[in-house]
């Protein structure tokens, strides 16, 4: 005996309730009278009293119990095991963008897959179930679990293959988890994966083609100035020629380059954008000509905002030896602007000095302090993973003047008992103390010295408000630092959806990998003391990946499951089985009502 819904047995609780009601039911013995009008009409009483009576096997009692049993029958759906033959199809849809590659007939693999799966869903019966899972960095349920075929077909129409490159295994693992040990697992892709378990059916609907496309587009700044670097790759087939075009945001062709592409060899093209363009200016790069996979034939790149760090070395214009040492090291650090002239460019981002004077509001500070420790040659103990000490190798350096005893802040670098570098953290502000006697040390002549200052400048640069790199591949997380006064960020995706992210104490917002290619607007919501900024910055997500553009291995193949499986989802009862308990319950209830009325008459 199988119960379709074991909770339906709760209806049996009505049986003891009915018996209790009948035990306490007040029974009125009929008594013929001749002058009913002489009895007080207000003396009429309710049908239940406080005294328990002997249970009388009345017709109403049996009919009510029968109604309760029929209701339990209907709700719990007891039956023998002959309805366990429904199918449950769990389909994993490859949502990588290369499913948009078209075959010779111009039909994309995603459309062929949609049509094939739709036919499969159409063949399912009323009681069969389907679960659709789209692959992705994080796989998600497109429909289900165990949805009706009609719902699954409706959901299938919404399926889009626009995801960046990812592994299918998480989606297959999720599918296997949902399927349990009874459902039919099917992978819908454009080719057979390198490894696929035998219990997973494969429906590959791809068509092999030799493609070429952009694999990387970035805004590049170096000593030669600003440039747009574009890499183009031909995936397979014969060498071919394609034209690379650079357009501005208005569609005006700024440059055009004919490329001769060798299969498997990346071709780098550099474009010099017009000078003195404002940050955020966009350029479109396109490969013209026919291609089976057109997603990677176009890309957009944004000009990032400059993020230079204004450094003030105090006291300004001094002749102290350490000042020359610092300035010499900073000269080798890009993005560092020495701003200690008579006319300051603005509030400094970083102050380096020897005195205890407080730094300007919001500025980081590095204080050089001479301690009492004797010179040491090592070993140096550094805080692992701290950005200030990243790639700083002090081997061979003599460090004198370290601090002995307790010092304020967290110790980042130490040698024996001597504390060499400490850090004090406040929201948006860092204060470093570098305990060193430069005269007795060789640190200023050691390669670690400019590396240390460069790390400091880079850390400060990353903490400046704004977007460090506006051009991102899909799925790559990035960090955005909000201006002071704001504590949240809204991201408006190209499809209009919005996500709200909260900043940490330093104003940094970790933006997870973007899922949609295109421009994502960054919006600063109004805070307690700052107005809202609607277009504060822009992130440009591109779906360029050499693996996505490789459709040379695509194929059309269908591989059934070896062994076959029958789902554990029960087929629902037939119409007769559905109606029978309902009719029985209704008849019993009607009989109970009739019997009760007769008994009370």
């Amino acid at each position, binding site marked *: 005996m199988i119960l379709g819904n074991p909770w339906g047995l709760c209806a049996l609780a009505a049986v003891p309730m009915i018996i209790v009601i009948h035990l306490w039911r*007040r*029974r*009125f*013995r*009929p*008594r*013929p*009278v*001749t*002058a*009913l*009008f*002489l*009895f*007080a*009409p207000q*003396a*009429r*009483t309710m*049908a239940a*009293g406080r005294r328990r009576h002997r249970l009388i096997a009345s017709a109403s009692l049996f009919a009510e119990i029968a109604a309760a049993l029929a209701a339990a029958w209907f709700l719990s759906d007891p039956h023998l095991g002959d309805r366990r033959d429904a199918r449950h199809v769990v389909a994993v849809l490859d949502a990588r963008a290369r499913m948009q590659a078209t075959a010779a007939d111009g039909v994309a693999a995603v459309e062929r897959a949609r049509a094939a799966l739709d036919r499969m869903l159409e063949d399912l019966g009323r009681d069969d179930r389907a679960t659709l899972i789209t692959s992705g960095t994080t796989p998600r349920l497109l429909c289900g679990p165990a949805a009706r075929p009609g719902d699954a077909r409706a959901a299938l129409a919404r399926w889009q293959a626009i995801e960046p490159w990812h592994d299918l295994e998480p989606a297959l693992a999720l599918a296997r988890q949902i399927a349990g040990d009874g459902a039919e697992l099917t992978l819908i892709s454009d080719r057979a994966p390198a490894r696929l378990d035998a219990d997973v059916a494969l429906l590959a609907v791809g068509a092999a083609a030799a493609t070429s496309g952009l694999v990387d587009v970035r805004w590049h700044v170096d000593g030669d100035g600003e440039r747009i670097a574009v890499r183009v790759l031909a995936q397979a087939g014969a060498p071919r020629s394609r034209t690379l075009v650079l357009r501005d945001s208005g569609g005006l062709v700024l440059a055009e380059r004919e490329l001769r592409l060798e299969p498997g060899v990346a071709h780098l093209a550099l474009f010099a954008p017009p000078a003195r363009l404002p940050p955020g200016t966009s350029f479109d790069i396109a490969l013209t000509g026919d291609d089976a996979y057109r997603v990677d034939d176009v890309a957009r790149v944004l000009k990032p905002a400059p993020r230079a760090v204004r450094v003030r070395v105090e006291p300004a214009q001094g002749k102290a030896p350490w000042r020359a040492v610092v300035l010499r090291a900073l000269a080798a650090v890009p993005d560092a602007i020495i701003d200690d002239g008579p006319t300051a460019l603005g509030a400094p981002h970083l102050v380096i000095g020897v005195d205890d004077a407080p730094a300007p509001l919001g500025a980081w500070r590095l204080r050089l302090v001479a301690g009492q420790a004797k010179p040491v040659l090592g070993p140096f103990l550094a805080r692992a993973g701290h950005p200030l000490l990243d790639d700083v190798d002090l081997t061979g350096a003599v460090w004198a003047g370290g601090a002995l005893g307790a010092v304020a802040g967290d110790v980042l670098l130490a040698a024996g008992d001597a504390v060499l570098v400490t850090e004090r953290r406040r929201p948006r502000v860092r204060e470093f103390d570098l305990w060193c006697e430069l005269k007795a040390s060789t640190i200023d002549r050691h390669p670690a010295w400019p590396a240390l200052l460069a790390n400091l400048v880079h850390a400060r640069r990353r903490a400046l408000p704004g977007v460090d790199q506006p051009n991102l591949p899909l799925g790559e997380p990035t960090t955005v630092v909000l201006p002071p006064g704001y504590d949240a960020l809204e991201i408006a995706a190209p499809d209009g959806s919005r996500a709200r992210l909260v900043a940490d104490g330093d104003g940094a917002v970790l933006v997870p990998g973007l899922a949609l290619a295109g421009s994502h607007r960054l919006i600063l919501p109004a805070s307690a003391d700052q107005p809202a900024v609607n277009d504060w910055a822009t992130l440009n997500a591109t779906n360029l990946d050499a693996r996505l553009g490789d459709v040379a291995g695509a194929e059309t193949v269908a591989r059934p499951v070896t062994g076959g499986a029958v789902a554990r989802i029960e087929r629902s009862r037939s119409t007769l089985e559905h109606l029978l308990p309902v009719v029985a319950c209704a008849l019993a209830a009607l009989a109970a009502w009739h019997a009760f009325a007769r008994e*009370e*008459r």
Partner: protein
Amino acid sequence: MPGFDAQAVVAAAARRVRLAVDPRRRRHGAGTRLGSGPGASLEFHDHRPYVAGDDLRHLDWGVYGRSEQLVLRRHRVEVTPRVEILLDASMSMAIRPEKLALATTIAALIATLAEADGARAHLWSFAGAPRRLAGQWRAELQALKPAGAAGLEQPVAQLAAGAERVLISDGLCPTGGAHVARTLGHGAGRLCLIQVLCRDEADPQPVGAVRLEDVEGGAADLVLDAAACALYRERFARHQGEWQRALSGRGTGVVAVVADDGFDAAVTALVRGGVLEARAA
């Protein structure tokens, strides 16, 4: 009449009692019973002065011889009394067999006594609508089938003025006694109610939760406890008082008999109530 041999019982009772008919109200033309007014019998009634036109054969010559005054000798009239028996044959009278049996036996007794006394007895039964029982009233009484409500409030066309009217009923009509007394007592020489009741109709006892089903329609669930019984008695007494007031001055008024006590007790109650009188031994 189920339950006992009515004819034998009536015959036995008729030997012990007779109708206590008020002679002053005896009318209805020539008969064998002396009436209350002057008439043509041999029984002296009174004298009155002679006026021209009087029949000289009625002059009292003895008085003239003694006092030389012409006076007329008048004799009492001889009448045939009319007794109209109105028997409630509604379902309420049949709530228990002995109640209906007692009511029909009393009706038979009064009719028998009336005929034995030289009066004309007329019977009507009230079972929904009034119906006159024809000459074979004994057979009709035996075959009486109670039905519906009595309908005592309905006027009866064939009732005669000045007749002795006896209403045999339980008197438990929702409209009260006044209306019935006005309708059925119209033109009657005398109207009395012989109220036949079961004991629990006059004095219900607490029995707990019951469904009261009125035999003439309607039902109600209630707990018949001491309070409900006291309330019933209070209303019943008020109902009885209304009957008493309605029949005041119309004769013997209301004479209640209890079916549970039997026929002899009922006869005794009727004698005590003035409806019957005992024959001299």
